[in-house]
């Protein structure tokens, strides 16, 4: 049985095949994976917020897109990934409750998805799979033996991106 590594909220894990990295029950948060198909090195990051500079508590860098993604990039490079081969996939960013007058904080899912894309673009890492938005939770995992990123939901089935 290959190793199953849990990634908590505001947390990141990196590893190599045959491990699978998994994060349960994402709502407005985003699960961002990086993967190098040749060395089979990868990582999964579970961010809660787009921007650490907008927050009073930014010690935990894995909580934010702008600090969490570069940190995870450094970690996978240390494990032998090559930056030129790295590809990214992202999922999450839902709006769980529909309110008539949704405030900014209610739309944080959208902002998280946008921030993840901007940061990855800034680092020059292509996004080859995406499943964001909607109003439902997701459990996401990446199998480091083949780079398959699975998204499980309650009512919308399961898919691979």
């Amino acid at each position, binding site marked *: 049985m290959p190793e199953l590594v849990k990634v908590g*909220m*505001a947390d990141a894990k990196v590893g190599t095949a045959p491990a699978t990295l998994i994060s349960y*029950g*994402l709502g407005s948060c985003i699960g961002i994976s990086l993967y190098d198909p040749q060395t089979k090195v990868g990582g999964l990051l579970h961010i809660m*917020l787009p921007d650490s500079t907008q927050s009073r508590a930014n010690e935990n860098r894995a909580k934010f897109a702008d600090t969490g993604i570069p940190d995870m990039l450094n970690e996978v490079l240390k494990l032998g990934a090559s930056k030129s081969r790295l590809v990214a996939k992202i999922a999450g960013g839902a709006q*769980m*409750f529909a309110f008539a007058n949704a405030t900014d904080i209610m739309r944080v899912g959208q902002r998280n998805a946008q921030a993840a894309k901007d940061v990855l673009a800034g680092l020059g890492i292509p996004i080859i799979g995406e499943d964001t938005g909607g109003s439902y939770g997701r459990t996401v995992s990446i199998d480091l033996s083949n780079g398959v990123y699975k998204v499980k939901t309650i009512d919308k089935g399961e898919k691979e991106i």
Partner: protein
Amino acid sequence: MSDDVASLSANQMDALREIGNVGAGNSATALSQIINRRIDMNVPRVSIVPLGDVPDLVGGPDVMVVGVFLRVYGKAPSNILFLLPRDSAFYLVDMLMGKKRGDTQKLDFMDESALMEIGNILSGAYLNALFNFTNISLLPTIPALAMDMAGAILSVVLIQLGQMGDHALVIETEFNTDDEGIKGHFFLVPDPGSLETILSAVGVE
């Protein structure tokens, strides 16, 4: 008080537990009258937990729950989340709609509306008791409902807290009907700045 809640004294925790007690006691009475059953309630848990551990309080981030969410406005802005495991929510709908136990297998529009109304009544009862105790007047928004993974639903509250700190202060009460058919978790999660207001209103600073 610092932005992190990790530094509360034992006295302060006691005061918050008492607030949870009167609030949830009032809510339990309201629920008991609606469904005509005895409701047991545990002593409220006041916990300060890392944000990522909050879903474990209800069984883990991937447990299927129905959540009724209300934002609370006033001098001590907070969030209220009433969480029911899916089967409990279905059974509660059976009771509210006069159906046989087990009849409800999914939620239609009327069922959702009934559960939101329950969230409304429980929150009203809770906030009324809180007002009598602290003299802080708090008004809830109309409720919103979602059925999904506990982690996903809780993230709505946790992300708001995440902007200010890495811990959540939760005042949580568990309800049980006498036949154990309904289990629910009622969370009051004060915004970081609200804690000070609540504590000074009860004279514990």
